[in-house]
């Protein structure tokens, strides 16, 4: 970051206005995935906040993770998170991503996303509604302003 506060303000404003996301299924049943995609469609239009779905972690600022973290996917999830550019954030979408949900304690499941990665926002729901995804993203962006 620069020592110039005005410049920092400009950079922060730019980041908040273009949070590009990477959608990651860490073991979800696909219900939350469908709702996340629904939130990105013109009906709910998450893109009005500058949110764009990207296909590579190199271009993403926010990882949108759905589902409990399985033992199979934990290493891959960590690697993908490492490959994202700084500063980066993680949003846990759905009850399973928040806590492990009904899969918590299962032999193949580690738990919620925060067992592996630092989570910035939790959006509970089974599945989450697109309005909840939008609300969570807006709250995350609001927190970045401070």
């Amino acid at each position, binding site marked *: *970051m*620069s020592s110039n506060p005005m*410049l920092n303000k400009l*950079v922060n404003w730019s980041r908040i206005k273009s949070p590009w996301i990477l959608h990651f299924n860490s073991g979800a049943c696909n219900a939350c995935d469908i709702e996340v995609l629904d939130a990105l469609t013109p009906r709910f239009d998450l893109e009005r906040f500058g949110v764009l779905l990207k296909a*590579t*972690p*190199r271009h993403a600022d926010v990882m949108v993770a759905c589902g409990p973290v399985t033992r199979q*996917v934990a*290493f*891959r*999830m*960590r*690697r*993908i998170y*490492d*490959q994202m*550019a*700084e*500063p980066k954030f993680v949003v846990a979408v759905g009850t399973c991503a928040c806590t492990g949900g009904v899969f918590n304690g299962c032999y193949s499941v580690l738990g919620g996303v925060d067992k592996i990665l630092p989570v910035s926002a939790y959006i509970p729901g089974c599945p989450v509604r697109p309005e909840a995804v939008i609300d969570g993203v807006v709250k995350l962006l609001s927190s970045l302003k401070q």
Partner: protein
Amino acid sequence: MNPSILLLPPIAFGIFLLVIWAISWLTSGLAAAGVEAEGKDLPYACGEEFPGEKATPDYAGFFPFAIFFTLMHVAGLMLATLALAPTAVLHLGVGIVYLLVVGLALAILFLG
């Protein structure tokens, strides 16, 4: 000084190189410092290991179709621009000959 000298390729290249270098120097200070991590610089393969292998692009299978489309496009252009007046019998003959030549070329391409 003649201003058009700025458009000379080596000079224009040098100017743009300086501009890009200046933009890079000014903005790199704004980027957040990255954290070193295992696998950070590896190719993105959904978090999987991606073993590198040599690959030689081969366009041999693509080449006949590229020529095919070129021939058909040129033939279409030639036929579309031929005179359509009833008296232009000569043009009609040229068109038929052209179609025969294109047909022969395609036969050589795919059958020969």
